[in-house]
């Protein structure tokens, strides 16, 4: 059953029992087992981490306006870029989509009441919090200057709080593993009757693929940082040449996690885009099976390409060539996804609202990010571009232009569902435009900087590069303003927003069948499972009622409580 008339007794009851207000008080949040509340707390957490690291980015860009030290010395600069990178990667991008949006959406998209292990879920949230506190305290207390990569032997000899920071990473890793585990089990066992694997929304496929990586790769990170700490404390002689270790071994260990981690970062973003492109084009997704399979393929192939971070580290030639070849293999599925998203718009009904504009920006930016990967995957050009600003620009196009923009699109898309409030379309679009312009202005010049030879992680640089750096910094401030506008839009909507209908965009996945915000039990009666991209039965009423089913979807399902599907 869906689309409960807004004035019915049921609707009023659901309104009273919505997950935000049905119980009150600090403890009702702190000890909640409700995946929606946990998701929301994650959202606040990752957004705080994001704004912190974003401000650090602006400090970096301010310093780089001139070739010499202006207000930071080299040491401070090194600590700030380390903080920026480490916070963005470990505290924001990795948990952003899976932990924040994933927690909220996975059970609802399955028509379930909660994730498979609600207590484990709360546990991963607190692991995230304590890891974050540990990590931040360590870094702010004495300043870490190793870069987020912790390359040895610098990290085993520098004076910074390396051991404390690595323990923070270790704890954060467990949070990530538990979340992944939870989602794998949830998706495997709790799909409602009628939802076969290929009736699953693509966001769930992406989350599933991501979870596989989280569970398989994160332990390697844990081992790496433990070995690093042991090397530092006890000189076990694995990474430090002074004790017969080899720094390149560390790089292999590190990238064996951190390359798959790139897909932990981007796959969920791709999942969001698949949803957004389809819903806002009011058009069934093109190439459903391909997108679903390619998520898994990317996740598995992603384990085999870590060596492309080390083309200049002195690996054997044959190894280097094999890694280059494997790297190109992963590029194909990503390219085809882009074509599928575009084809989804064809002959659809495209509504250019805020989430859709973010999704389209994603396609634009991610395409640049992906194409510039061609230069870096090719061996001869990578020898020149490695560790220059070209790389900096490339991964920001993927991580920011891709993941962050996708995340923002997702936040705007599901905001009405999460909070029950609509946001200002006008200002949402303004934020998108500012983010888009600012982002390109920041990072396009960096490609040129890189190809001209500007190395990364430089506190000072030769004066020829100043012009491009200044343009980049101006762009960064526009980007910063855009993000603050986005923040303003969501905060404003909380206070002044119009009440959101259950289905404001016309989505056909299950989360749009419960009220906005959902009651704490998600669904009073089991939702009808139908094709997640079949929009034919949906009809737009008005701003207050949103989209409703004109005739109930045809798939017949037993009218019972959703039991875990047999797998």
């Amino acid at each position, binding site marked *: 059953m869906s689309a409960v008339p807004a004035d019915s007794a049921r609707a009023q009851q659901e309104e009273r029992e919505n997950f935000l207000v049905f119980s009150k008080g600090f403890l009702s949040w702190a000890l909640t087992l409700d995946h929606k509340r946990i998701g929301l707390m994650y959202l606040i957490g990752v957004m705080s981490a994001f704004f912190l690291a974003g401000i650090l980015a602006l400090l970096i860009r301010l310093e780089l306006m001139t070739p010499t030290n202006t207000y930071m010395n*080299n040491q401070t600069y*090194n600590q700030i870029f380390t903080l920026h990178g480490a916070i963005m990667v470990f505290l924001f991008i990795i948990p952003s989509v899976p932990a924040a949006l994933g927690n909220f959406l996975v059970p609802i998209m399955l028509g379930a009441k909660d994730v498979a292990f609600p207590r484990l879920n709360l546990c991963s949230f607190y692991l995230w919090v304590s890891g974050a506190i540990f990590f931040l305290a360590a870094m702010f207390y004495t300043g870490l200057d190793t*870069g987020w990569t912790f390359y040895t*032997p*610098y990290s085993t000899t*520098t*004076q910074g709080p390396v051991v404390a920071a690595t323990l923070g990473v270790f704890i954060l890793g467990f949070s990530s593993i538990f979340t992944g585990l939870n989602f794998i089990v949830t998706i495997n066992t709790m799909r409602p009757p009628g939802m076969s694997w290929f009736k699953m929304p693509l966001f769930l496929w992406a989350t599933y693929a991501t979870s596989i990586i989280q569970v398989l790769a994160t332990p390697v990170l844990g081992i790496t940082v433990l070995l690093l700490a042991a090397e530092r404390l006890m000189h076990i002689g694995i990474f430090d*040449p*002074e004790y017969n270790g*080899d*720094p390149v071994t560390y790089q292999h260990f590190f990238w064996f996690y951190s390359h798959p981690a790139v897909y932990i970062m981007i796959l969920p973003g791709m999942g969001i885009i698949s949803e957004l492109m389809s819903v806002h084009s*009011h*058009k*069934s*997704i*093109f*190439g*459903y099976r391909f997108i679903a399979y390619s998520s898994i393929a990317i996740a598995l192939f992603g384990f085999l390409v870590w060596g492309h971070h080390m083309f*200049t580290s*002195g690996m054997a*030639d044959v190894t280097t060539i094999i890694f*280059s070849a494997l790297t*190109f293999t992963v*590029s194909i599925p990503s390219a*085809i996804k882009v074509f599928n998203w*575009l*084809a989804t*718009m*064809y*002959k*659809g*009904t*495209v509504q250019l609202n805020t989430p859709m504009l973010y999704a389209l920006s994603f396609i634009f930016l991610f*395409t640049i990010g992906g*194409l*510039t990967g*061609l*230069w870096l*995957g*090719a*061996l*001869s*050009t990578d*020898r*020149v571009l*490695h*560790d220059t600003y070209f790389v900096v620009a490339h991964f920001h196009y993927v991580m920011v232009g891709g993941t962050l923009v996708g995340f923002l699109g997702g936040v705007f898309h599901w905001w009405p569902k999460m909070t029950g409030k609509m946001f200002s379309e006008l200002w949402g679009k303004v934020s998108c435009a500012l983010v888009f312009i600012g982002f390109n202005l920041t990072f396009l010049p960096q490609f*040129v900087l890189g*190809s*001209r*030879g500007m*190395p*990364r*992680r*430089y*506190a*000072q640089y*030769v004066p020829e590069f100043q012009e491009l750096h200044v343009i980049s910094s101006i762009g960064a401030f526009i980007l910063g303003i855009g993000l603050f506008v986005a923040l303003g839009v969501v905060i404003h909507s909380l206070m002044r927003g119009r009440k959101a209908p259950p289905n404001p965009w016309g989505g056909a996945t299950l989360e749009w069948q419960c009220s906005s915000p959902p009651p704490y039990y998600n669904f009073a009666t089991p939702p009808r499972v139908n094709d997640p991209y*079949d929009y*034919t039965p949906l009809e737009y009423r008005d701003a207050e009622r949103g989209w409703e089913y004109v005739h109930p979807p045809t798939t017949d399902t037993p009218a019972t409580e959703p039991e875990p599907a047999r797998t």
Partner: protein
Amino acid sequence: MLLADVNETFWFPPKASTFAQETDSFFMAIMWISTFFFVLIVGVMLYFMTQYRRRPGYRGDSRALHNNALEITWTVIPTIIVIWIFARGVYGYMDMVRPPAETIDINVTARKWDWSFQYPNGAISDTLHVPVNKAVRLRMRSVDVLHSFFVPAFRAKTDLVPGRVTTMWFEPIQEGIYDLFCTEYCGDQHSEMIKRQGVFVTSYDEYEQWLAEAAKPPTHPVAHGYWLYARRGCKSCHSVEPDRRIVGPSFAKSYGESLTTSTGESVVFDENYIRESILNPQAKAREGYQNASQMPSYQGQLTEDELMAITAFLQAMKQDDFISVVADEDGLTKEDAISLGFGDEEDSAETAEAGAQEETAEGDGTRPESEEASGEATSPDAEQDQ
């Protein structure tokens, strides 16, 4: 405008080595391919955005579409293209990692945060001098952390990994002066680990001349000590201006002072302390430097004579007139050394400063045989552990 600025373009630094032509045209080839796909993707996106936008009176289709021909096309074409890109990348790479049989071999030592280059005749310099149109092979090592050798104009880059020896080669094709950057993060002064206009590509004759010149350190211990200070990386951490702290303490006015170590002991900055500080820097750290980036040990890299020369130089750093000469822009030049009485009287045309040498090298093309010999005799046989 420097000669090297010629043929600099919007995208690229000057093309100064044999790799440049291939890498740059490959770079541009990928650029055209990418531009084509980018324009296609964004064009289609914009077209669909306007053509199918929600508007009164328009009703789009909402059912799934399939088109096998289209899907096969957009899988096969990109696949073929990336195979080509991969292959051409390998082609260029093979050239970069296969040096020709005949090369000039130069040993490179990187340390926080300076480079030193040891040439076939034993000369050691902190700048890189190579002849044009000759293949050069670098045998590189790092004594502390990771560094990476990158000369953009040569399109050549390779990491230096402590505990390993890495090699790379290139063949300069254009005379000029270029920059060398360290591209692997290595700590505080990573961004200063550059040789701004410190890579000299000259004709073979000029190179040979420079080489002969550079092999001769000054004989006077103080001048020799300074010569080592400027070439063996001390300069990047220790200043010669009073109270200017780079990473380690300034050398000015230290000799004979008594100072406190981090453990509260009191030591005198004398010959033995200097020796210990250089060979075993972690034995006693000066108060206030516990958190400074560590000084690498020079055990096995400096000879006894060189240690003595450095000591003599540090001792001379007590004198105000010496400090002011050393601390000025061009450091201790030959003339300075002579006027202070530290000069090697016999060869007054020579200068002790590497940069100054470069300019004067052309001037005295022919030198007496005897000097060559004396140069040989005093040439450092350091870096023996290579």
